[in-house]
């Protein structure tokens, strides 16, 4: 630790950085980078904290599976979902997870194309996070079906019933959007892993690990031809993945925007959902990065520069979101539509007003702290802000989904929504699934891209 403090005094001398914080603490060589990251997987003792964390996550995952079994046995009546609140916690969770899943692709693809080198240290686990978040997200629409065993009827496949999905429904688009996103994210993540898997294969001493990593590395030998093709393919993939960042959440937004429910029927939803997704994705990356770099001593690779940049993105997307909230309120007034107006009033003053104001506090007020450079450099502040945003974004979806539905057109149908223990088990359980996968990932794969860091070492040296 003191070592890194010493280095920080040299910050100003770091040749590459125009700001004062480098992307990679100086003094690293190819070897030190490789050693330090691969050691987490191969040689270092697994910290006790990992076992505790994995254990808790796994227990939650089991709770999730138990709740799911009960759900399949009884029906979705075990949840608090009702008429008129036909969508509730499961859809809130779905949108929340999909939103979180946005940061990974954004960091990997868009920032790659924009040549933002600072992405290097965080892209690997951001992508992993994306993949796991999409997995969690993808489960909820399936579980929330009244008859989950016929979920495949949403897919266009030739069948003897001569039936076809109804392509006017945004839910069908959703199926495609989420499946595509999952597939591309998985490929992108895996492609990025190949050189590192080869590194692990070469460095491990266990025969079993050699075989597994060897198979996964697909015969990577690191020849110039390999690298040449690899870079081209990776860029192309990044190009393919880029539109998905926009499309997935736009389509999720259309699930709502295409409906006539007051509070949903808004053209601003797609861009506003995408901004919100990036906002929540970065918050989640930050939430994961801060403890990881502390526990595994990765401050050299995930530096304050990274955290600072992420904080800026959060601030920027948070401002877009705030604009979205404002425009929503403005248009409900300006439209002259009494139902839209009522929804806004009901959000702010109705029985769930607490959730609306908590959302404003978490998503709009708290991120304003990030205007201050010193607060942006304070790890505890960043962590608190990121956590607030995680909560706030979940509440945002709650406000959109539940509050809009619980009081729509006919006052006779108005109802209150109360989640049941099963709703909560499914939500917390999905966190269990997410963290179980994440803990396995940390333990079994390099959480930071080794080869890209080596490139970074090269570049910083070269320029120095």
């Amino acid at each position, binding site marked *: 630790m003191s070592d890194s403090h010493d280095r920080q005094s040299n910050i100003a001398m770091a040749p590459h950085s125009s700001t004062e914080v480098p992307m990679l603490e100086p003094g690293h060589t190819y070897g030190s980078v490789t050693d330090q990251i691969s050691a987490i997987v191969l040689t270092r003792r697994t910290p006790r904290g990992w076992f505790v964390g994995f254990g808790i996550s796994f227990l939650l995952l089991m709770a999730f599976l138990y709740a799911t079994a009960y759900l399949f046995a*009884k*029906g*979705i*009546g*075990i949840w*608090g*979902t*009702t*008429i*008129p*609140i*036909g*969508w509730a916690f499961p859809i809130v969770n779905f949108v929340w997870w999909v939103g979180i899943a946005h940061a990974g692709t954004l960091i990997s693809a868009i920032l790659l194309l924009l040549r933002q080198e600072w992405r290097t240290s965080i892209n690997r686990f951001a992508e992993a996070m994306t993949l796991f978040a999409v997995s969690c997200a993808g489960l909820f629409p399936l579980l*929330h*079906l*009244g*008859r*989950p065993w*016929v*979920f495949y*009827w*949403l897919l266009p496949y030739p069948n003897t019933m001569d*039936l*076809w*999905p*109804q392509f*006017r*429904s*945004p*839910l*069908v688009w959703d*199926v495609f959007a989420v499946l595509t996103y999952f597939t591309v994210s998985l490929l992108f993540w895996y492609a990025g892993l190949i050189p590192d898997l080869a590194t692990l294969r070469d460095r491990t001493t266990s025969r079993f690990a050699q075989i597994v990593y060897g198979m996964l590395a697909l015969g990577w030998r690191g020849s110039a031809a390999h690298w040449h093709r690899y870079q081209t393919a990776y860029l192309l993939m990044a190009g393919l993945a880029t539109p998905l960042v926009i499309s997935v959440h736009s389509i999720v937004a259309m*699930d709502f925007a*295409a*409906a*006539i*429910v007051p509070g949903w029927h808004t053209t601003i939803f797609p861009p506003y959902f995408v901004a919100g997704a990036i906002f929540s994705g970065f918050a989640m990356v930050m939430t994961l990065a801060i403890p990881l770099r502390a526990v595994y001593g990765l401050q050299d690779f995930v530096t304050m520069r990274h955290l600072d940049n992420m904080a800026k993105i959060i601030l920027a997307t948070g401002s877009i979101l705030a604009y979205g909230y404002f425009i929503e309120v403005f248009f409900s007034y300006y439209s002259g539509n*009494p139902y839209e107006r*009522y929804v806004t009033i009901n959000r702010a003053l109705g029985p769930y007003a607490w959730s609306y104001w908590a959302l404003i506090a978490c998503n709009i007020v708290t991120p304003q702290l990030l205007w201050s450079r010193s607060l942006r450099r304070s790890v505890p502040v960043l962590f608190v802000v990121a956590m607030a945003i995680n909560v706030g974004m979940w509440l945002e979806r709650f406000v959109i989904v539940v509050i809009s*539905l619980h009081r*729509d*057109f*006919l*006052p*006779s*149908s*108005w*109802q*209150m929504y*109360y989640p049941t223990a099963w709703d909560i088990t499914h939500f917390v359980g999905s966190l269990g699934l997410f963290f179980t996968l994440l803990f396995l990932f940390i333990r079994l794969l390099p959480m930071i891209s080794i080869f890209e860091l080596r490139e970074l070492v090269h570049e910083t040296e070269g320029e120095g």
Partner: protein
Amino acid sequence: MTDDVNNLADLRHPPPDCTDRSDESVPLDWDTLRTRLSGAGGRTFWKGLDELTESPEFLDYVSREFPRQSGEWMDTVARRSFLKLMAASLGLAGVGLGGCLRQPDEKIVPYVRQPEDFVPGNPLFFATCTTLGGYAMGLLVESHLGRPTKIEGNPDHPASLGATDAFAQASILSLYDPDRSQTVLKGGQISTWGEFLTALSAELPALRGRDGKGLAILTETVTSPTLAGQLRSLLKELPAAKWHQYEPVGRDNVRAGAKRAFGEYVDSIYHFDRAEVVLALDAEFLTGMPGSVRYARHFMDRRKLSRRDGPAGATGHAMNRLYAIESTPGLCGVVADHRLPMRADRIEGFARALAGELGVAVADGQVPAATEVPAAWLAALVSDLKSHRGTSLVIAGDGQPAVVHALTHAINRSLDNLGRTVETIEPVEAEPVDQLASLRALVESMRADEVDLLVVLGGNPLYNAPGELDFAKYYEQVRLRVHLSEYFDETSFVSHWHIPAAHYLESWGDARAFDGTATIQQPLIAPLYQGRTAHELLASLSGHPELTAYEVVRQYWKGRWGDADFEMRWQRALHDGVVANTKAQPHNVMWSFTDRASASISPLADHADLEVNLCPDPTVWDGRFANNGWLQELPKPLTKLTWDNAAIVSPRTAERLGVSNHDLVELSRGGRTVRAPAWIVPGQADDSISLALGYGRTRSGRIGNGAGVNAYILKTARPEWFVGGVELKPTGERRALAVTQNHYSMEGRGLVQIGTLTQFEHDPKFVDATSRHPENLPTLYPKYEESENAWGMVIDQTACTGCNACIVACQAENNIPIVGKEQVGKGREMHWLRIDRYYKGGLDNPETYFQPVACMHCENAPCELVCPVGATVHSHEGLNQMVYNRCVGTRYCSNNCPYKVRRFNFLNYDAEFGYDGDQAPVLKLLRNPDVTVRSRGVMEKCTYCIQRINESKIEAQKQNRPVRDGEIVTACQGACPTRAIVFGNIRDSESQVARLKESPLNYSLLAQLNTLPRTTYLARIRNPHPDLEGPATTDTPPIHPTAMDRVEGGER
């Protein structure tokens, strides 16, 4: 004998095993045993030591074909029931039902000789009748392959006119109720009818010897000529026997009022079709009263503007006007043009004041009630009544004391209404008596140990006798108690013999309607269980156990008609559902009433003193329907409460007493206490609490047990339905109630268009133009192809009384499950049709509006485009169709439905109640075979009764003609007493529905959304007295939110 009977009572506790198996073991001969075994070799097996010793007991055992005890099973009936029970228990244990076993082979065999008219798939309709409070309503019952599935009204029957009430609609479920009593029970143990007859015949000689002394028969109100004949001849045979009558929701006040006014028992029937001004004094004539279905029709026929064909006002008679004074909000108050809430005990004072104004000599001028009635109100009412001599009608509620009824007769007499709008006829009841006195006499004689044998024919006095009489205590003193009832209920439980009663759809009988018209009740199905009728039981009491109900009823009518033409007349009566020329004759009455101060019910109580109104429940009535899930889950018209009764209090009283919704309060009077949850209802009279009867059943079955609280405990032994001097104490506890509508106000959204008659006559197009069906709006999409038929519906909100008959009819027709209280509380009720209720105006006496809402079958249906699997699609005839098999259950369609009429099967609801095919196979018989039973996880909604549409289309196609207007009648439409619902082909400009859609009153709900609903509404038109109301506005200002928050459901 006495000992025997005592033993009977003990039989509820199973006696010790009394078989002759001796447990003392025979000492074994060990030596013999050893020698035998030592000598045995090879494959000699022995079963037990008994075999080896060859003890005589063992040899005897082996030589007998059946074990000794099996002698008891030689009786064929008992052996059969044993086998049945064994089969059932094996079945329950899962033997033969395991999923891994093959389905048993079943053969389907066609009829060798097909019964006439009996075509599988085509239902048949039979005429019969049901009774409520003894009075008949004629029905046509749909029967599929011998099983009744749906009830419709009989257009030829005077009390039905083709419609029904909710009770009649729901009675089909009671037929198949798996909790109905299925066997004769002797002291709670399974017995047989034969054994009962044996026990009874042992009693008869002694009874005859004493001329029937000690025999008492308790019935409910009897209008059945046959049953009355049987009872009379029994009483002739056994002159010392006693016949008592007690109907828990009885008409003692009506009878006593008539006697006081005319000096004799007469029934009044009302001609609402001739009345232009009606005053209802706590009278719920639109539901529950004998003849109310007919009254509702006639009353509304005078109100509907939609009936004015052509130019407005062409029908030649004015819209009638209703004034209602109510203690608790009811349907009449909703329909009324002017309503006043008033404590039930003050109505006497009001009636006297009004009578005085109209020139009737009344006892005294001291009328505290008049202070509650605004002077202008009374003046307007008096002038309206005075200017409508002979065409006005004043009607008092069954719960009001006799003197109010007498005063009402006096008022009607002074207004020349007698013989015009009010007709007096000979009593319809076989034996009109003061039933409360009759019951009291029975209790007295039970207490004096004068009753030796008590036969209770129907009814459940142990539950529903007034608490003050302590019926239960003295009932147990009767030596032999026989109870005939459909359920093993509270009374059966403490009776020696319980005889399962046959449901009315299983039994022969007869009954008379409110106007005396008799109907022969014919069964639709043989008794599902061992049900017996009162006729059979009485025949056995008279020593003719061999007579069946069929023979008894035929005998009676043969006696009345003579042998000539009997078969013809019998067939005619069965076919028509009415016996011709049986309407009671008008009875000219003498006037004998003078109002005396002593005739008042009681010194008028102090205002601070609370009264409790113990009225029949709008859904479970007096408790007889407590185990009927459809009725339990049917939202009560005004409170929208399900599965419970509640102490209904006015907002002001609630404020004074510091109670809010769901608060458990203790109501006590004279040492009797009831704990009920409070429910605040705008429009309830201040300081008056309404607590419906019929709840708090303990032995009604899986549905009714434990629902609500028993209000009979508070009931006094007085005929009026309200009791004063009640104390209310909040307990600090809460009991969650389940309501289907939590919000009371329209939020200024103009959902129900409202206008007054003057407004309409002044400007027929007063209905908000934006709420009209927009036509030919520009669209990018191609128009739907025109088809021959375009189905549509119009609901006349002026004519809707909110009586709920349509909801139950829909439930019966469409196999809609019930979901239970907890699920209703969550908002998951499954009714395809609901009646929304909104308030307008102040909290203490708001105007109330009903709006039936089912699927609107939008032409631009928002649900259709969001379904990812195409499970909800549009038919070329404009139906919005649900394809249950295709539905995966995303519930997106429901979210996108602005009317929220889609219902989702969140759970397997039938299984939750043990109502699925496995646990209650009998309920399979109830299902309408024309409608799919939906599974868990599937969305469903109103289909416009597509099965009925298709049936008519097929019929029309066979005859090569278009479907005629009026040929298709939806279930809701068929049940509606006031014909407020009209369905048909809107493409046919001559159809009734198309003409109604042309009415200036026609509007669409949420028309701004451009969903183009096929169901539209006719605006609600009121006819207030011009002096009492200025020109009304159509907008509905929301009730102040904080005030409503206190009243609304709020948290659960």
